[in-house]
Each structure stands twice: as C-alpha cells, then as structure tokens.
C-alpha cells in the first residue's frame, strides 16, 4: 500500500476495464513522473468528455448534441436499423462503409450471471422507434458469443409480431468474439451475407 493520494489514484485506475492492479500501479507512477502539462491535458480531456459527451436520445450512441451525427444525417437510410451492444461497435461497423442505415445501441447484452436482463438494455427505446412503421429491417449485430446470440434471439422474438425483416450478421465472424475486434473485411462480408433469423 502507498500513501493516501497515490493509493487513491491506483485504486481509481484499477477500476477501469482491462487495467489490473499491476498496470494501475505502472500508470500511476508514469503519471507521477510525467510532465505536468501532459497530465493537465489528460485531466482536461477527461473532464471534457464528461461535460460535453452524452448519449444520443434516439439511438444511444455517444453524441456531442442531443442526437448523434448518424441520426442527424438525412442521407442515411431511415428504414434500416442495426442493433449493436456498444458505441464502439458502431465505430467498427462504420469503418466497413457497408451500412447506410442507422443504429441502435443496447448498452450491453443479456447476461444473467452479471445481472443484466432485457430491462437493463435500451430495448424499450428500440420498440418505440419501431412503432411508427418507418423501419422495415432490423439487423441484429450483437457480438458473436453466447450472450450476443441470446440477445439477438430475444429481440427477434420480441419484434416477430411486427412483421419486419430481421437479419443476423452472417457467421464468419470469430465465434466467442467481440464485434469490435473483427477486422473490417470480415465484418464487411458479414454484412453482405447477413441471414434471415427465424425464431
């Protein structure tokens, strides 16, 4: 254990995803030794994201305004929604340039082990978007692992009475994987070859 403030910093860093106690310690000491101007820039960036960035009221993606850039873009196809788990998945899919519709970010996947049920995801918001009939196709692009599959099945069943076209990204994505880490080519192909989901 280190003295008060240093240990506080290590504890806070250790709470970040992917940062174990050893890395937290390394980052903390790096910051202690760093140029004050560098640290200043980091704190400013941290403060700014929290002040300026929020979540799009329509799709749940990160946004600097009420609505995100994609929801505001009139050239995007309003009839297709691609459902993803996280904002980072939007970035991964945008990179492929295969998709011209809009998104819906769920904020996770169904995982009883972690206490995440459908009511903890932005599913009610999705149902509201589907209500007016503009949207005719739903692409379920949750992660290709068990929790992502379960979430896709859940959604497909939920919207079934609405008679939309519901597709799932084609396999070819690494199973047990994270959408974010699929490379652009694989992800692009998965979009082209998406299959109808029957449940």
């Amino acid at each position: 254990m280190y003295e008060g403030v240093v240990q506080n910093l290590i504890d806070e860093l250790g709470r970040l995803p992917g940062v174990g106690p050893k890395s937290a310690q390394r980052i903390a000491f790096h910051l202690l030794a760093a140029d004050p101007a560098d640290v200043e820039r980091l704190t400013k960036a941290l403060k700014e994201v929290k002040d300026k960035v929020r979540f799009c009221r329509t799709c749940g993606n990160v946004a600097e305004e009420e609505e995100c850039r994609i929801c505001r873009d009139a050239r995007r196809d309003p009839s297709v929604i691609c459902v993803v788990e996280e904002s980072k998945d939007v970035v991964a899919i945008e990179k492929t340039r295969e998709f011209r519709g809009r998104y819906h970010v769920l904020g996770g996947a169904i995982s009883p082990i972690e206490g995440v049920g459908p009511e903890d995801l932005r599913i009610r918001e999705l149902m509201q978007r589907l209500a007016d009939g503009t949207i005719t196709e739903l692409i379920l692009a949750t992660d290709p692992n068990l929790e992502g599959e379960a979430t896709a099945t859940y959604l497909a069943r939920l919207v079934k009475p609405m008679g939309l076209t519901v597709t799932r990204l084609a396999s070819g994505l690494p199973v047990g994987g994270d959408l974010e880490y699929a490379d652009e080519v694989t992800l692009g192909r998965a979009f082209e070859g998406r299959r109808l989901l029957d449940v």
Partner: protein
Amino acid sequence: MHVAHLSLQDFRSYATAEVALEPGVTAFVGPNGQGKTNLVEAVGYVASHGSHRAATDAPLVRQGAPRAIVRAGIVKDGRKALIELEINPGRANRARLNRSPVPRPREILGMLRSVLFAPEDLTLVKGDPGERRRFLDELLTARAPRFAGVRSDYERILKQRNALLKSAAAHRRSPGPEVLATLDVWDSHLARSGAELLAARLELVAALRPLVAQAYAALAPAGGAADLAYKSSLGDIGLSTDRGQLADQLLKGVADSRRQELERGVSLVGPHRDELVLSLGEMPARGYASHGESWSFALALRLAAFDLLRADGDDPVLILDDVFAELDAGRRSRLAERVAPAEQVLITAAVPADVPDELTGCSFSVADGQVVRD
C-alpha cells in the same frame, strides 16, 4: 503417433526436466513420491489440456513459481511438431505450435492424443455420474476437438440459465414476462447446444459398447458381461441421434420441468444431468461390483477408448500410471498383451518387478528430481 521429446519447466516437482523418448515401451521406475506420475501427467496435459488428478491447473505449477511450461516434440505420420503450453493459473494459458503462438490453446487440442490409465480411474466405476460424463466428453473431444467448444458453450449456457433461475427463485413472487421470455431464449439455446452434446454421447456409447464388453472379457474372462447404457434426464423416451429431434425433446423436457426449476433455481434437464450406467451381468457395477471387478471395468473403459481412437487412424500414446501393481498375475499379463502393440507406451512403476515381462523396452530411473536413462 509418439512423443519424441518432453521438456518441463516449473511443472509439479520439476524445476526443469528434459526427456528424450522413443516409440515402443518406456518405463519410469523409482521410489514413491519421486516424480514419475508428474512426468506422464505432463504428457497427458499436452493431449487433453487437463490433468487426470487435479481439477484445476494451480497444483501443476511448481510451488512458488509463477507459471509452468510443458513442451512436447511429437511425431505424427512421420511428421514432427512442437507443442508448447504455458500454464498460468487463474489466467488464460498460452500455446505455441512450432514456435508460433496460436490464438487459443483449444486450437491445438487433439494434436497429441493419449489414453491415460491411472489408479484414479476407479472413480469411473465407483464415483459420481459426473466422472462418467467427463469420461465420455473427454473422449468426444479427443476424437473431434470441436467438442471442446460445444462443451464450453453448453456449460456457459447452463451457468447463465442457472443464474437466471436462481435470481427468479430468490424473488419468490412469480417471475415477470421479461424473465420468462429470457428464460425461453436460454431454453432454446440449451436445447440446441445440449442436443449436439447428447447426440454425440449417444453415438459414442453405441460405438463403445462392444469394445468395452470385449475388453472386459479379455481382462476378466471368468466374470459376467460388461455393458453400458446411456440414461438421459429426459427419461425413458427412446432417443434417436437426430439433432433436431433431440433439440425438440430437450425443449419439451425443460418446459415440463419449468415450475420445478423455478422453485429450485437450477437446471434439472439436459446432458449435465445424464448418467452412463455401467453393468456387469444383470447388476449395476456401481455399488455391486467387487474392487477387482471395478478395476477391470475401469481398465476396459480405457482400453475401449484406446481401440476407438486407434480405429480413427493414428495410435494414441498409451500412458499406464501405476496400474500393474494393483492387478493379479493373470490380468496383468492380459492387459500387457492388449497394450503392447501400441506405437508408444509410457509406464510408471515403483519397482521394476511391477513392469510386466511382455512390455520390454527402455527404462528411466526417477529419483531426487532426476530422470536418468538406464
């Protein structure tokens, strides 16, 4: 196939060990507690990514060391390959094949195949149903490594489903529509993945039955006939190996027991609740068979596994850890005859007299952490 070289670093009692091996019979002989089993356990680990006597990886790492490394140079159809496994307890293990990292150790499962006989095998006959399910599943994985994925998917689905059932059970009030709809989803995934596992187990048991009967008769000619039967938690409803049909049956099975499952907070139907029933003559082996009969049955199961893997093509490496000391002279020589033709047989024994005469080959002395060729 055979192992041509085994190299250990911080594995069990060994800080380092280098052992050059040949096809044919190799015996490791030495007093108790000197590290004979540790050596062959390492070979088994390379084949199955698990130990035959430890449920987790932690005991495999030498006391005080951060990780263990096992390297095996293998020869398969005349071609050489180098398998390297880094065992990191509590974290993901890492693997390399011919010095290149592979994304996941699971991808090189099945490169080396082995069948390991050990005193612990007695639990196959006398132990809980879980031991026999594991026997089937490990054999499935040895024959078709993709079953490692099927098994881990199934286990994960089960965990998720049990977590959901448990939280529903804890709330006492009748579960809301969202919980039930989520449960429906996990039911369908359990049925699909469970059907895959169940079908494969049923096919495996059908293939094993004549081999086990024959192996048992060879080992214990005077005894009753050994037989296997797969008993599904779905009850006696006549199961085919049609995956679609099994999935439907599983789906119906979980639907029928939903109320009970919600009350108890666990999944009560599926391959995780099934049993492989072993019988000798008219009686079940578990609870009825004598010690010697149980031993012969356990050996017969392993021999059948060996026969099956062998029929797939390449001979698996046979590992016999301390088995001959337990057997009478007749069974000892009959077992030796059965295993002698294998491409490679690795034996451990505390005294040279425990290595049957039928199994001549080279031998190593194991003492004080040293493995020395005689």
